[in-house]
């Protein structure tokens, strides 16, 4: 499904591995493996990269994303921290100021708020505040989203908080391959990146991932399926139900469906979205997070600004509702699913 558009081999230190970048071998892996590969790539290629967070070392991360890294890079680069999110983020700010490249892990996105003030007041501001004297090349990784029968606070999606905070990149991969390429790009970025990992997709499926380091540009959405009747726009864990819905619409209704994967949620790639909707005239946006002031509302607002006159029907938002994410007994009910997406698409098509 993923195209090679916008993919490029990692520049730094990759020279030694063969500058020609001939199509190398690939390995089939899940997203956890792919993220682990990106961390390993980054730590191998750049010895200023350090990893910090709760249980990232000996325990290898509660989802094993940092498997083997403590063994490989030692406890001066893989840092098991005490239990304090603000200190992990604020400490990473200090590490970055001192010239290291910290990759901070929040154990779950639902606990990142303990350090939200450090993100809003410092991570997002240091470059502008110091007029470029200091920048903060750092990544804050965290698993987000529902679907794994977890306890309260373990299933939310609040990418919009970060998208509403100027100065950050908010990146959300959807497959093993793009997870690896986007995480590597995030680590190489000169700007701070909030990297949301769709935990429901961690082990849900596998994909061929190049053995050579690969990066994708931040800030670019991808048309992952071309079509002309309607545009479905999603990202992260919602890509799978969205693509399923697209299949159903194609197969059962004979509709031509275009599907966009945002990949970088913010700063948003307006052009890819508006170009598509100008073509199809119809759209559904899909995300897990609450509807009000969510990414979906932003997409609609931009389409209206740029392509209102092409719109042939209201854009529907299939999202989390404006209530708290339910405890897991009802999460399957709550999460957007292919049926719900397809139904909305049909309504938009029939408008």
């Amino acid at each position: 499904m993923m195209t090679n558009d916008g993919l490029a081999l990692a520049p730094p230190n990759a020279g030694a591995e063969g500058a020609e970048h001939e199509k190398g071998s690939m390995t089939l892996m899940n997203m956890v493996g792919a993220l682990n590969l990106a961390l390993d790539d980054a730590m191998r290629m750049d010895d200023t990269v350090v990893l910090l967070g709760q249980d990232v070392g000996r325990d290898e991360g509660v989802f094993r994303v940092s498997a083997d890294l403590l063994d490989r890079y030692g406890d001066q680069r893989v840092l098991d921290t005490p239990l304090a999110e603000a200190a992990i983020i604020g400490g990473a700010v200090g590490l970055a100021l001192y010239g290291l490249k910290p990759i901070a892990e929040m154990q779950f996105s639902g606990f990142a708020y303990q350090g939200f003030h450090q993100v809003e007041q410092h991570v997002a501001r240091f470059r502008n505040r110091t007029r470029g004297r200091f920048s903060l090349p750092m990544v804050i990784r965290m698993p987000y989203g529902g679907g794994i029968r977890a306890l309260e606070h373990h299933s939310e999606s609040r990418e919009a908080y970060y998208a509403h905070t100027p100065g950050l990149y908010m990146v959300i991969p959807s497959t093993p391959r793009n997870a690896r390429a986007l995480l590597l790009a995030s680590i190489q970025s000169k700007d701070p990146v909030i990297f949301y990992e769709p935990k429901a997709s961690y082990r849900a499926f596998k994909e061929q991932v190049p053995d050579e380091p690969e990066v994708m540009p931040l800030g670019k959405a991808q048309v992952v399926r071309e079509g002309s009747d309607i545009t479905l726009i999603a990202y992260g864990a919602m890509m799978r139900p969205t693509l399923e819905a697209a299949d159903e619409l194609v197969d059962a209704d004979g509709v031509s469906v275009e599907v966009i994967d945002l990949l970088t949620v913010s700063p948003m790639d307006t052009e890819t979205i508006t170009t598509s909707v100008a073509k199809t005239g119809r759209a559904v946006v899909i995300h897990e997070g609450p509807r009000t002031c969510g990414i979906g509302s932003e997409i609609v607002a931009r389409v209206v600004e740029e392509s209102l006159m092409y719109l042939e029907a209201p854009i529907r938002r299939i999202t989390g509702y404006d209530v708290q994410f339910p405890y897991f007994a009802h999460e399957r009910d709550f999460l957007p699913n292919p049926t719900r997406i397809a139904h909305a698409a049909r309504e938009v098509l029939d408008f």
Partner: protein
Amino acid sequence: MPRKQIKIKPKVEYLSILDGKGKLDESLDPGLDDERSVALFRLMLVARRIDERCINLQRQGRIGTYGPCRGQEATHCAATMCMDPEDWVVHAYREPGSFYHRGWPMETVLRFWGGYEEGCQPPDGVNDTPIAVPIASQCLHAMGIAWGMKLRGDNHAVLCYCGDGGTSEGDFHEAMNFAGAYHLPVVFFVANNQWAISLPRDKQTASETIAQKALAYGFDGLQLDGNDALAVHVGTTEAVEKAKSGGGPTLIEAMTYRVSVHTTADDPTKYRSNKEVEKWVKLDPIPRYENYLIRRGLLDQKKIDAIDEGVLAEIAAAVESYESTEETNPMDTFDYTYDELPAELLSQRQEYKEALEREGLAKTS
């Protein structure tokens, strides 16, 4: 260069009463009455058996992830027993015995682990906060409740649970500091089970004890043997009495051990040795306390078996009740979010209901 040493006023002490085999240090005998003494035993057994059953249910997929308290029964059972009904207990998540003692139906707690908000609904009249997942965040609520007691002139106290890992969070600090500054009737009870998932206690903080952290806030700290139910009971009772008589807060550090997994999703062999676990298994609080009661003539094997049977039957009934409860209505979340459903939510509720009906998922109403 010579300096003046600064004298620190509040005290930091250590307390233990029963030894590793449950033998009483007579000079410290608190004289706990027979009924209460046995009730405490039964309560610890309840916690142990709930724990065992929940791990079982989790393995069979009948509940979700579970966080066991095995080895820590003395801490929360003996501490919560010191609280009157008008007092408040502010929970973390590893205190099934406490919920039971305070009057939460067992099936309510099962519902929490089963993925239902109903598991966080305290029964009417029970002054407890439900399981709190964000580490140490509950400490501020405990502080606030105690503040309310003080402002209203009520003679009650708050008991607040927290883990050793939790002491690193900013919320822990802010709660302790406010409690000290306002001299509030609250007992912060840190169950130091030596681990925060994979981080051992000595990497969590460089202070030699957690109890001494109280000095930063101007009140007393008490470290005690958390696998000694008597010491926990005595230490907590004193701290609660001090709180109620205007003596301000206390920080208790109960030395215990998480004998089992962090949660059923955890694999502790990755980060700790069996030897360490075995050392602590020998200090299991239940046999120690049991031995003590046997010596006191309050228990024998027959009585123990009878108690155990009762406990198991109660748990079986709770599981039965949990599993036979009708599926809850997914719409409830809309109805409980605000006192009155705002118009926007009403329309989203309708949208959700129609979707569920169309999709043949949950029953709605």
